[in-house]
C-alpha cells in the first residue's frame, strides 16, 4: 500500500505550491494566450477602423468629384449652347452673304446679257441695213438697168435706211 495523505489534511507547503502553480499558470495563460489574441484582436479592430476611415474618405472624395463633374457638365452644356448659337449665327451671316453675292452676280450677269442683247440687236440691225443697202442698190441697178455710182448714191440710201431704221 503506497503512502497517502489523510483525506483531510493541511500542509502549508502544499497550499503555497497551489498558490505558486496558479500564479505561474496565470503568467503562462497571459503570455501565451491572452496577449497574442488580444494583440490580434486589437490589430484587427485597428484595421477595421482604418478600412472604415478609408472608405469614408473615398466616399467624400467621390462626392466632391461628383460635384466637380456635375459643375463641369453644366458648364459644358452652357458652353455648347453658346457654341451652337455662335455657329448658327455665323452660318446665318454667311448664308446671307452668299445669297447677297449670288443676287449681285445674277444681276451682273443679267445686266451683261442685256448689254449683249443690245449689242447683238444693233449688230443685226447694222447687218440688215447693209443687206438692204446692197439689195436696194441691186434693185435700183436692175430697175434703171444701168450702173449706179455706188459712191454717189450710197449716202442717199443710207439716209433713207436710217429713217427706216428709226421707224423699225
Amino acid at each position, binding site marked *: 500500500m*503506497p*503512502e*497517502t*495523505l*489523510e*483525506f*483531510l*489534511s*493541511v*500542509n*502549508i*507547503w*502544499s*497550499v*503555497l*505550491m*497551489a*498558490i505558486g*502553480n*496558479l*500564479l*505561474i*499558470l*496565470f503568467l*503562462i*495563460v*497571459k503570455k*501565451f*494566450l*491572452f496577449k*497574442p*489574441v*488580444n494583440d*490580434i*484582436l486589437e*490589430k*484587427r479592430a485597428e*484595421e477595421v477602423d482604418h478600412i472604415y476611415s478609408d472608405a469614408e474618405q473615398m466616399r467624400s472624395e467621390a462626392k466632391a468629384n461628383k460635384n466637380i463633374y456635375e459643375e463641369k457638365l453644366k458648364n459644358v452644356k452652357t458652353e455648347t449652347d453658346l457654341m451652337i448659337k455662335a455657329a448658327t449665327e455665323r452660318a446665318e451671316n454667311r448664308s446671307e452673304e452668299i445669297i447677297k453675292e449670288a443676287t449681285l452676280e445674277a444681276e451682273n450677269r443679267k445686266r451683261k446679257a442685256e448689254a449683249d442683247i443690245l449689242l447683238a440687236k444693233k449688230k443685226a440691225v447694222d447687218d440688215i441695213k447693209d443687206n438692204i443697202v446692197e439689195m436696194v442698190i441691186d434693185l435700183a441697178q436692175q430697175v434703171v438697168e444701168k450702173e449706179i455710182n455706188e459712191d454717189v448714191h450710197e449716202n442717199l440710201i443710207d439716209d433713207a435706211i436710217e429713217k427706216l431704221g428709226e421707224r423699225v
Partner: protein
Amino acid sequence: MNVEITGARIFLRLPFGILITETQVNMWIIMLVIALLCKWLTHNLKIKPAGKRQVVAEYLVTMANNFVVTNMGKSFKSFAPFIGALFTLSLLCSLSGLFGLYPPTADLNTTLGFATVTFVLIMYYKLKTNGLKGYLKGLAEPIPVLAPFNIIGEFSTPISMAIRMFGNISTGVVISTLVYAALAWLSSVVLQWLPGALASIPILQLGLPAILSIYFDLFSSVLQSFIFCMLTVLYIAQEAKSE
C-alpha cells in the same frame, strides 16, 4: 470488505515537510497541458482568421474578457487572464478525475491555495479603497463589540470558498469510490454461483458509476469552477467599488 478513503498519494518527502504528492504532479501535468494548448491555439495567428483554431482561441479570450468586463467593469480587464487561468486550472483539475487521475481540487490544500489568492486580492482592493484606517474602522462597525465577528467574517469568505470546492469535488471521489466498492460487493454476492474466476468479475460496476460520474465529475466540476471564479470576480468588484 474494506473501503479506504484517502487523500493524494505521497511520492516524495522533501526536507522542511515539503511533500510532492499526486496533487502536485497532476497539477503540473495539467499546467503543462494548458500551456501547450495555449501555445498550439495561438501559433500563427492572423488578422484575417485563417482557421477554426484561431476562432476557438479568440472565442475563449473574448469570453473571458467579456465575463470580467461585465462583472467587474472595464478598468478590470487586466484580470481576464487571471480569471481565465483560475477557471481552466480548477476545471481541468476537477475533470482530471475522468482520466483516472486524482483530482487536485479534491485536495483541500489546492482549494485553500486558490482561495488565498482570492483573499489577498480582496484585501488588497479593500485596503486600496478604504485605506488601512478606514478598513480597521469598518471592522468595528456597527459597534466595537462585534469586531471579532467581523474579523471571522473576513476569513470566512476564502475558507468557505475553499471548502465549497474541495467538498464538492472530493464528494465525487468519495461517492464514486463507495459506489464502486458497493457494486463490487453486490456483484460478488449476486454472481457467486458462477464457476471459478467469472464470479470475481464485478459486472455490476458497468453503467451506474458512469451516470454518477456525469453529475459528480462533469457537472459539478464545471459548476464549482464557475462559482469559484464568479465569487472571486464579484467579491473583488464589490470591494473595489464600495466607497
